[in-house]
């Protein structure tokens, strides 16, 4: 699924400079616990989380994830966005809660 489609489905706001309409994600993982995310091995994955701190970006970076969606209207600070920029990870923010966000992406075919 292209990031452009993710933005449309979640009515998300784009933050930072690593976003690209045509960047492709092939799997997604939704959690507020980073070790759950670190147990998840999929290539070109998207992370959805309600947690906002620098460890979210580090976790995504270690897992080679392509994008992070902050849910429930969480907007990360500039420090977090610039960490993601450095790592080449796109940052999105949506008003939708985690469950709904995951559900929408799943229904549109973002799963293995």
């Amino acid at each position, binding site marked *: 699924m292209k990031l452009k489609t993710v933005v449309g489905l979640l009515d998300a706001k784009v933050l930072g400079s690593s976003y690209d309409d045509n960047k492709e994600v092939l799997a997604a993982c939704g959690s507020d616990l980073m*070790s759950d995310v670190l147990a998840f091995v999929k290539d070109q994955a998207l992370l959805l989380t309600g947690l906002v701190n*620098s*460890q979210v970006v580090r976790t995504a970076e270690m897992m080679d994830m392509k994008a992070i969606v902050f849910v429930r209207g969480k907007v990360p600070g500039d420090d977090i966005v610039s960490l993601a920029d450095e790592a080449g990870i796109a940052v999105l923010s949506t008003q939708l809660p985690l469950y709904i966000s995951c559900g929408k992406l799943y229904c549109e075919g973002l799963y293995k």
Partner: protein
Amino acid sequence: MSSFKVQYTVDGEDFSIAGDASRKLKKVLQNLGVAPQIIRKATVAMYEGEINMVIHADGGVIDVEITPEKIHIFLRDKGPGIPNVSLAMTEGYSTASDNVRELGFGAGMGLPNMQKYTDYMNITTEVGVGTTIEMIVNTAV
């Protein structure tokens, strides 16, 4: 590629920079041309260990030796030690405080993840003295 050694000091006070050593190792491994799947295994395992050093043990020192065959990681801390290692290795077991959980850790998945992503892992620990975790990820594909 000949043998290559790096050492990182992990600050136990500053959670916001926890993971920085693992991020640096990732860069080193990328520059050495190690395969991306191998880099992911090694850096995720080290990241979990590094976070544990910060949240459970007041920081410590990480030594990494990279040879053509393997990535050899030693995590050493002078924290409280682990009273029951097999219990600590159980998925879901965590003594993390609510504070730590609010930061996104405390699922009790860190040590099991470290085991899962490495080819060898050995924990040496003594209550009141500290913990040393040795991990090996083979680089040969």
